[in-house]
């Protein structure tokens, strides 16, 4: 396995810029996620790593070595496609041994390698089946085995859960996460599903409109989003306009001591996660306008005294709250994060 890095990479298609000056370093054995809305450039970034697209500017490196102009067949990368792209004219075993064969690995060794992988993925009994006859989950595993069979520098996963149903997705998420941990494979995982990325990746890169918005561990991204976009894309966020003066955060309806490290003066946007809003006693009153029962909890929207909207999470013990009620709330200064306004 290797370190893989994109250094100031830009990719243009005619007049549009799909990837704009992006730098990502993936450490040896790390699982890196790229998330973002569709069209944000995440798939292009993956294809640049694989070599299907050539960068317009910048460098792609494996272990510090410049591979920017090496075609995909000589890069030695494993790729699991969204559709898995298994070869229907071959059996599962032939699919898995195809890559080693192309790399002139001996007959015995490639068989051993493939069997080992199939066993590891718990699909050895499928070896002689035609991929067409497999379920989505099985196909995914075969795709994974095929990608790993060439012992790649990096494993690339392109939305590998898209075709599966919700329940299966959840099981596979755990299994795949565990597997990637065990194998210590350097992995790039591209998805639009932030929950998948949060649960499976060591670090996440959030992309939007070709730009890299933030890169960090899941908790960093969730708790200290760099800007409004990241705050809004990862989880639910309340963004409130405030003025800060002399370490006092002024909401207009209440004041708090400003949080330590993010001290600035002037107007700013702060983020508060719904689950950080303490409901019960407090100085602020919220008028509830909408309620969404979600099973484990109730998500509510309310209006603050100055008219800004606030999303909060109610415990099920508050199940008798109805729209029109007023609730008292409080913010903990530690839970308020000042965000650079993107505007």
């Amino acid at each position, binding site marked *: 396995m290797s370190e893989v890095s994109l250094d100031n990479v830009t990719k243009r298609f005619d007049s549009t810029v799909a990837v704009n000056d992006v730098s990502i370093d993936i450490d040896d054995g790390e699982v890196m996620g790229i998330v973002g809305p569709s069209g944000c450039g995440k798939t292009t970034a993956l294809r640049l790593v694989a070599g299907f697209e050539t960068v317009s500017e910048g460098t792609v490196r494996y272990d510090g070595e410049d591979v920017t102009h090496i075609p*995909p067949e000589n890069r030695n990368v494993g790729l699991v496609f*969204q*559709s898995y792209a298994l*070869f229907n004219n*071959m059996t599962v075993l032939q699919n898995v041994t*195809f890559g080693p064969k192309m790399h002139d690995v001996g007959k015995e060794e490639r068989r051993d390698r493939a069997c080992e992988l199939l066993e590891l993925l718990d699909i050895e009994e499928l070896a002689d089946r035609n991929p067409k006859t497999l379920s989505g989950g099985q196909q995914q595993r075969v795709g994974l085995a095929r990608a790993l069979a060439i012992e790649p520098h990096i494993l690339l996963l392109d939305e590998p859960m898209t075709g599966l149903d919700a329940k299966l997705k959840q099981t596979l998420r755990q299994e795949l996460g565990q597997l990637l941990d065990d194998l210590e494979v350097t992995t790039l995982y591209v998805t639009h599903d932030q929950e998948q990325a949060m649960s499976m990746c060591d670090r996440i890169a959030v992309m939007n409109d070709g730009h890299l918005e933030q890169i960090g561990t899941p908790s960093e991204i969730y708790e200290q989003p760099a800007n409004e976009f990241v705050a809004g894309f990862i989880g639910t966020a309340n963004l409130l306009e405030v003025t800060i003066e002399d370490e006092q955060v002024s909401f207009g309806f209440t004041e708090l001591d400003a949080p330590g490290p993010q001290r600035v003066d002037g107007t700013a946007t702060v983020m508060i996660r719904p689950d950080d809003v303490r409901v019960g006693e407090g100085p602020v009153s919220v008028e509830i306008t909408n309620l969404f029962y979600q099973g484990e909890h109730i998500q509510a929207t309310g209006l603050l005294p100055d008219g800004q909207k606030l999303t909060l999470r109610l415990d099920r013990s508050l199940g008798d709250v109805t729209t029109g009620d007023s609730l008292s709330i409080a913010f903990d200064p530690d839970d308020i994060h000042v965000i650079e306004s993107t505007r």
Partner: protein
Amino acid sequence: MFDLYRRLSGALGRSSGNDNASGNEARTDGGVVSDRSVPEPGSESDPGPLARVGAAVDRRLGSDFLESSLFWLPPFLLIALFVYGAIIWNLLISLTDYRGFANAPDYGNLDFEMYTRALADPGFIDAAVNTLILLVAFTGATLAVGLLLAILIDRGIRFENAFRTIYLLPMSLSFVVTAQFWLWMYNFNNGIVNLLLGTVGIGPISFLGDQTIVLWAVIFALMWQFSGYAMVVYLAGLRAIPTEHYEAAQVDGASTLKMYWRVIIPQLKGATISAAVVLMVFGMKAFDFLYSLVGGYRPPNGADILATKMVREAYANLNWAYGAAIAIVLFGMALAVIGPYLVYEYRRNNL
């Protein structure tokens, strides 16, 4: 399942058309009257006797049978009469001693005389062998060229449309026309092929006069004409393979050549079979070509095929029964190739 839904939506569609008709929706679904009647509100009364008969038939054969038979039966019968009926008739003629034109064939005295005669006729054996060579070589060569062109044209080439049109152009030409310029091209003295070969010191070759060469010259001309067709079929086959398969082979380290040989071409089996079957049929049309090449019943020596022999026997030699027997042999050859294909596809539920 689908049928139920169709009936349901059918019932819905109809009841909205005649809201003020009597409330009882008679279950004459798909009957001739109910579905195709003018959808004016209130105009539909009780189903007539015809519809009742229709309903009875429907219960037996499925709801759509009667209404649809109006549409599929004509082609079914036309083909029964003009193709299968004609073939059986042809078979009958081949069992008589009919010589053609005078009166009618005598169907009272049937035997296999014409077939034994064929087996003893060296001209027939030659023609049969030539037909086999022509079909196999023509189909194989055309598929190969078509595949090459399709691979080259696929995956984003500029002017793809122009290339496709050009390659298809020969297929739309009559053999009467193409035979003309192949005559010129192959001409011994001033044919362009011999002129070209002459510049590299070969020839001149008598393409149409040499018995060992003429068949191959004909095969090349036919390939020239139909490789565009093979290309179109292969192109459709290639387009049905997802891009990911190319990319998967690539990241697995396959070179372009290996990618096509091991991953892409094996997936073109379906396209190959279907193109081959249609090419066989085109190959049988070589008659038109050979006929136009000489403007008469007798093709160049060494290029006689069953089709030309059959027409010659029937119309020039007035041996209708013999001609019919040759036609049946030709038909049998086609069936030997196409029959298994049809059965195979039928069993696989592809038909």
